[in-house]
């Protein structure tokens, strides 16, 4: 049932993210079944699938917000540490953007963006703020820098959250349904930022329901159902010529959106 091709990979280079035979259960529920995925430098992998298919869980295992039962996760060829300082260091190198933004509600937007660089990377206050303002301008929320998250719209909050991740200069970024909590008119402002990131060469794993984004930006689409990767391929292949019945059913079900 599964097509396990590992996608494009430039010869000789180590994948930035690699999952090998990853399995996970929530009690009796088998949420990840023998997941194999490898993401090369600069590659944009879009993960789609029906809800409950395990795509968010997979995304969250990559920086160990979820533990796994068996298998291996490698970051630039090194096994993801289980805990302790090593894990903390590895997390700092992977960006994560959440569905609910998760900005720190007691801090200004500027402080949200400078916290990681100052606390984790030891960057000076001035330098961290200078870089934060550059990033906030890049995502279009520089005027909101001195407000607290609750004073911003959802779209602005999510763009600020992307800036917060970028401030750590991550090797790769994971997006866990970044537009699912947004009002329709705000989705594009967030997707635009992500498109620009992708064009800039960022390695990205994006869990999303935005098919137009997948078509436009993805190097590879991974389709998951019932905890397994059912099919993967280029966006054109996947959307125009899905090979599995499961994928065809899913694509039919979302047509007309």
């Amino acid at each position, binding site marked *: 049932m599964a097509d396990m091709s590992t996608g494009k990979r430039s010869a000789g280079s180590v994948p930035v993210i690699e999952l090998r035979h990853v399995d996970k259960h929530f009690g009796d529920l088998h949420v990840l079944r023998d997941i194999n995925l490898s993401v090369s430098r600069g590659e944009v992998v879009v993960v789609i699938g029906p809800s409950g298919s395990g795509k968010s869980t997979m995304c969250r295992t990559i*920086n160990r*917000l979820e533990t796994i039962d068996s298998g291996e996760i490698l970051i630039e060829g090194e096994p993801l540490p289980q805990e302790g*300082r090593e894990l*903390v*260091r*590895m*997390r*700092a*190198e*992977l*960006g*994560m953007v*959440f569905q*609910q*933004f*998760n*900005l*720190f*509600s*007691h801090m200004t937007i500027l402080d949200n963006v400078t*916290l*990681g660089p100052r*606390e*984790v990377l030891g960057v000076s206050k001035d330098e961290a703020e200078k870089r934060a303002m550059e990033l906030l301008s890049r995502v279009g929320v520089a005027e909101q820098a001195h407000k*607290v*998250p*609750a*004073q911003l719209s959802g779209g602005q909050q999510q763009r600020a*959250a992307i800036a*917060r*991740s970028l401030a*750590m200069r991550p090797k790769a970024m994971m997006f866990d349904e970044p537009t699912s909590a947004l009002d329709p008119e705000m989705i594009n402002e967030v997707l635009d930022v992500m498109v620009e990131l992708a064009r800039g060469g960022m390695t990205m794993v994006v869990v999303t329901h935005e098919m137009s984004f997948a078509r436009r930006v993805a190097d590879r689409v991974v389709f998951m159902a019932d905890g397994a990767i059912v099919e993967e391929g280029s966006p054109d292949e996947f959307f125009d010529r899905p090979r599995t019945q499961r994928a065809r059913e899913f694509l039919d079900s979302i047509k007309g959106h």
Partner: protein
Amino acid sequence: MGFSELLSTYGEKYLQGLLATWSMTAVSFVFVMVLAVLVTVARVSPYRPLRVVGDLYVQVFRNIPGVALLIIIAYALPELRIVLDWRTCVIVTTILLGSAFGSENFMSGINTIGVGQIEAARSLGLSFTQIIGKIVIPQALRTTVLPMTNLLIAVMLTTALGSQVPLNPQELTGVVSYINTRETGGILTFLISALCYVGTAFLISFAGNRLDKRVRILR
């Protein structure tokens, strides 16, 4: 004995009592807050033994009557060659009781912090200590100003335990006992102390409300 006579004879005694109550309350509350934070951090730490100790601390000191705890500290500890002066006994009792309740307040403040914010902090590579110091404690403190205001009032009222031991100077309730063993002031003697408590509590809650409005986190 009338109101004016009481005040003219014992006015200074009441004033000393009020000041003693205030100073014991202030000293106690500083330690209550520090201990409440430490105990709560233990209760949410990743280390099970620390969590157990923290929970046990709260269960023990939240569930002992103040007088019983004072008796243990003042009369049982000397058996173990730990002899504290009377004022310290009262303050330690108040701190132990208050910090257990303070930790419960603080816990409820921590529970208002979305798990997503903690996950975001972990994703940035912040350590447990950094997450506690930069995200959890500041937010928990700012959302629990009003319960902590109540706690400060409760701490003040708990210092009335001082009337059970020979303090010098006596605090407000001790002053009442002192006067009532000498005069027939009756309820009036107590009323003056009560007014001091109520007046102080009023000031505390006024300040607490102001502070809450200033630091409350927009959500």
